[in-house]
């Protein structure tokens, strides 16, 4: 599980208030989600200014569609991540662009999150927990077999169907499907341990 249960409960409580139109709750939700969503937007769009426009679009959508959030289907975090990814893919397609998928992101340096940043109103404990989660996922991903990691990253960060992923990797569709399944299952298992 990528988030601690206490974080998930807190997120859901905040969402319940957002559904009621509570703007201070939405501010808190922004504080909890802005960094990971912005990081995703920067990675997929490769442009910070465009990523900020995408973020505005995504958060306004979250405000409008908060009532459609279903806790049975996903955590708030995952709902927000998948919504962001979907909106970014919409933007990329609308502009007739295709994502240059970067298999390795070594060219982009991490900017550490600090509690003193003006846009972050989370507690130091929240920031620490989130950084730990990020670190844990990266470690798990780094330890996956390279072909599984490559297939998952291409699938997640690319604007591609599974047929296109297979084509890009030059592998049969069945092989690519199996790699994605095995990689995601391992990721799930290792996150739970």
């Amino acid at each position, binding site marked *: 599980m*990528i988030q601690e249960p206490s974080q998930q409960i807190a997120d859901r409580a905040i969402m319940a208030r957002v559904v009621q139109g509570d703007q201070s709750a939405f501010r808190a939700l922004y504080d909890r989600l802005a960094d990971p969503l912005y990081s*995703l937007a920067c990675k997929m769009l490769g442009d910070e200014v465009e990523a900020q426009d995408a973020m*505005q679009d995504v958060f*306004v959508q979250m405000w409008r569609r908060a009532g459609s959030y279903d806790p049975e289907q996903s955590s708030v975090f*995952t709902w927000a991540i998948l919504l962001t*990814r979907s909106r970014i893919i919409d933007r990329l397609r609308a502009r007739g662009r295709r994502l240059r998928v970067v298999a390795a992101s070594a060219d*982009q340096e991490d*900017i550490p999150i600090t509690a003193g940043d003006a846009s972050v109103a989370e507690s130091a404990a929240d920031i620490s927990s989130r950084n730990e989660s990020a670190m844990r996922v990266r470690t798990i991903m780094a330890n996956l077999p390279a072909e599984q990691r490559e297939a998952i990253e291409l699938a997640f960060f690319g604007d591609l*169907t599974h047929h296109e992923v297979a084509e890009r990797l030059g592998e049969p569709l069945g092989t690519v499907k199996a790699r994605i399944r095995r990689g995601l299952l391992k*990721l799930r298992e290792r996150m739970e341990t």
Partner: protein
Amino acid sequence: MIPEEQQDQAALYALGLLEPDEAAAFESQLSANAELRDMTRELREAAGSVAFTAPLRTPPASLKERIMREIANEAAERKVVPLQRRPLGWVPWAIAAALAIFCGLLAVDRIRLKRQLAALRGVDQLMQTTFFTLAPSAPAPADAKATVAWEPGNQSGVIRISNLPAPQPGKDYQLWAVDTEHKDPISAGIIRVDKNGGAQVRFKPVENAQHVKAFAISLEREGGVQKKEGPILFVGSS
């Protein structure tokens, strides 16, 4: 135990990689299989966590204020202005009386319409009409809507679209009827949306379609194509 093939589909679904028709088929399996639903939820969580592999970035503080301003504006527009109390005690009674008269007129009108409907029921093609709700998928916006009313007897129908921006130059939206008796979808013509992203168009497929199970809209070359080439934007069955 979930078969491997179904696990493959669950992983692809969690990553949003399935084509719209495949996703729709998988969702129907999900609704009937609790174990598959649980697994899909867990795979979706795993898929979401992949975002953490993106290099960490923190947005500028100004972005938060920009977003909160827009949210505040939206919230203000949603608010209903409360009625002010005025010393006009007769007004509520007058409104109530007007409503009562209005309700009476509606009741009379309803009876008249029911009689007309009963008279038409035997002959009207509307009774044979099948309705299809088409679900949007990228690149169509999530809030875009499309519904089709299909009259098999007339081999024609009406499609209504809203919130769909005009395609980029050189492209057109094309409607397709998916018929079980035909190998490929049957073209039902080009759909052009107005400046507000809406359209209401009567259409007729180019071939006889007696067993239509779904309609779909794709993005194609300007003027349309004989056989679907572009991405599907909407698909839906009755």
